[in-house]
């Protein structure tokens, strides 16, 4: 409480659970903001909030803790939620909208990293890079052993699900490898000449690999279902750098087990960090622990943009990366 008095002149930012590298927000920005650290309090959350956060106007989200109606009810003065992620599925956007709470995210600062990972996973699956590295490091490469061949990238038809900032960066990269690009998105994008499919099953039927780059919403939950996977086919590869729940994970695992699809590169899962154990036995699957945006450089950019949004709010300036409804 003495803590609160000393810093009472600084604008307050509620932090329910700390985002990654929170210590850097503290060390670099505690002269600008007073961070109300709910997780450090012995009080249960609702008590902490009603005692200390009734007048708090801003909140720094951690990207995993849901910002839902129950939480928003306890924050009557909240005007702004800043999330250092690009993903927004942990925030009840319509509830925020109806309460007049603005939301700001990381905009597109993480898009290149996520796109890089999508491309990296695709190359890894097609060229068996992680399998081969395992193989060599186990001492299994001898002149007698034969090695199963991979598959080329040039000429592969890539179906991008979600042609937003991330999808566009994926397209740009894969074109340089000689891949052809098609996409499905909520709306056709007039500034891109890639073939547009309004139906994901059709996109899948015309693709050798699907790259999932969209956000998770009610519309995209289990968008990639059994029908889409079967349309992708026995040689087809699925890459997911969006959110686990965009794919019907049970169905995908079944398809992989039965050989109905050719392989997968996955950075996200329905119940992270739990992963269906069938995937561990598969050499045609590459697994990544949700690290799409997690490079040193991008974490720094995300932190900078989050702080930028908070500073703008407290100076009555326009928010640099406000999430607009569309």
């Amino acid at each position: 409480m003495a803590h609160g008095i000393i810093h009472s002149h600084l604008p307050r930012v509620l932090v329910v659970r700390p985002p990654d590298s929170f210590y850097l927000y503290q060390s670099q920005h505690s002269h600008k903001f007073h961070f109300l650290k709910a997780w450090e309090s012995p009080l249960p959350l609702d008590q902490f909030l009603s005692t200390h956060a009734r007048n708090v106007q801003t909140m720094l989200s951690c990207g995993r803790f849901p910002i839902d109606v129950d939480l928003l009810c306890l924050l009557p003065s909240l005007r702004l939620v800043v999330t250092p992620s690009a993903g927004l599925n942990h925030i009840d956007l319509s509830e925020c909208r109806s309460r007049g709470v603005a939301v700001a995210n990381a905009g597109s600062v993480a898009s290149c990293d996520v796109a890089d990972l999508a491309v990296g996973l695709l190359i890894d699956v097609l060229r068996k890079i992680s399998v081969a590295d395992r193989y060599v490091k186990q001492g299994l490469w001898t002149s007698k052993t034969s090695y199963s061949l991979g598959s080329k990238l040039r000429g592969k038809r890539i179906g991008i699900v979600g042609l937003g900032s991330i999808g566009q960066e994926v397209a740009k990269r894969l074109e340089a490898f000689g891949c052809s690009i098609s996409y499905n998105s909520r709306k056709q994008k007039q500034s891109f000449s890639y073939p547009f499919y309004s139906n994901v099953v059709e996109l899948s039927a015309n693709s050798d690999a699907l790259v999932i780059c969209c956000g998770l919403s009610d519309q995209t939950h289990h968008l990639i279902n059994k029908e889409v996977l079967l349309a992708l086919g026995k040689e087809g590869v699925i890459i997911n750098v969006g959110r686990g729940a965009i794919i019907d994970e049970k169905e995908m695992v079944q398809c992989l087990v039965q050989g109905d699809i050719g392989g997968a590169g996955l950075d996200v899962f329905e119940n992270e960090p739990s992963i269906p154990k069938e995937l561990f036995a598969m050499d045609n699957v590459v697994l990544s622990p949700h690290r799409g945006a997690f490079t040193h450089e991008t974490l720094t950019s995300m932190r900078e943009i989050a702080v930028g949004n908070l500073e703008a709010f407290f100076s009555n300036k326009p928010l640099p990366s406000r999430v607009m409804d569309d």
Partner: protein
Amino acid sequence: MESIDVLMLCPMISYLEQELDRRFNVLKLWTAPEKSQFIKDHSATIRAIAGDGGHGADAEMIEALPRLEIVSSFSVGVDKIDLEKCREKGIRVTYTPDVLTDEVADLAIGLIMAVLRRLCESDRYVRSGKWKKGDFKLTTKFTGKTVGIIGLGRIGMAIAKRAEAFNCPICYYSRTEKPDTKYKYYPSVLELASNCEILVVACSLTAETRHIVNREVMNALGPKGVLINIGRGPHIDEPELVSALVEGRLGGAGLDVYEHEPEVPEELFGLENVVLLPHVGTATVETRKAMADLVVGNLEAHFSNKPLLTPLV
């Protein structure tokens, strides 16, 4: 043509073996109990050699085969063939350029991603159950990093084009500056290494380029620098590479080739900033078939007195 003796130096994909068997009398060197005796026994009739990147015709073998007319290599790298000797004796040499350019370039980018973003290490992390106990560490961004390429031939250019799509500035070292590219040229590998963050070896192996990446170059690339080799193992001083990595003077490495394949220095096995591949630069179904078609096609053309498809000598 079934009467023509073709000496096959090593096992290759079965498609190639079958296609050669259908057209020629294939003598399989690796099945011989004693190789030099085998060559002696057939020296009067062998008119062609089919080899690969790791098995070629050196001076000794060429001298032992007075009727040798053509060496057809299942590779684009010909450092195991004594080209001078072939020229001297009027022996034709064919190789497999272009059909594998994309595959090798794709793998180079794959290796860069695997090292910078720790793809293999994080896959291991997930499979071992460690993710349940905590997040994997932060890795390093690829987009925008400066890529330095040693050798701006077909493969070097293909790597440059791909890296540009990741917004990477490109620089290079080559024997001579290339007038029609916009990439920045450095007149020495040392200067190149001092000015890039990712160094890719993409030149051919010759006496001049052996150990072109030495201790000094690796120190210049530095503790945050990443070295990628999709050329030939002897391009890099391997013992120096091992100590640079173990001591942290070099930030990471992605290797597809080694000085004494299939031997790989075991000190590298436990390093998470190192990705090791078993010489798979051309290892796709499509590319190996295209390479095989060129090997067979060149031999057929030669023995039908038609122009060779992809001659080097």
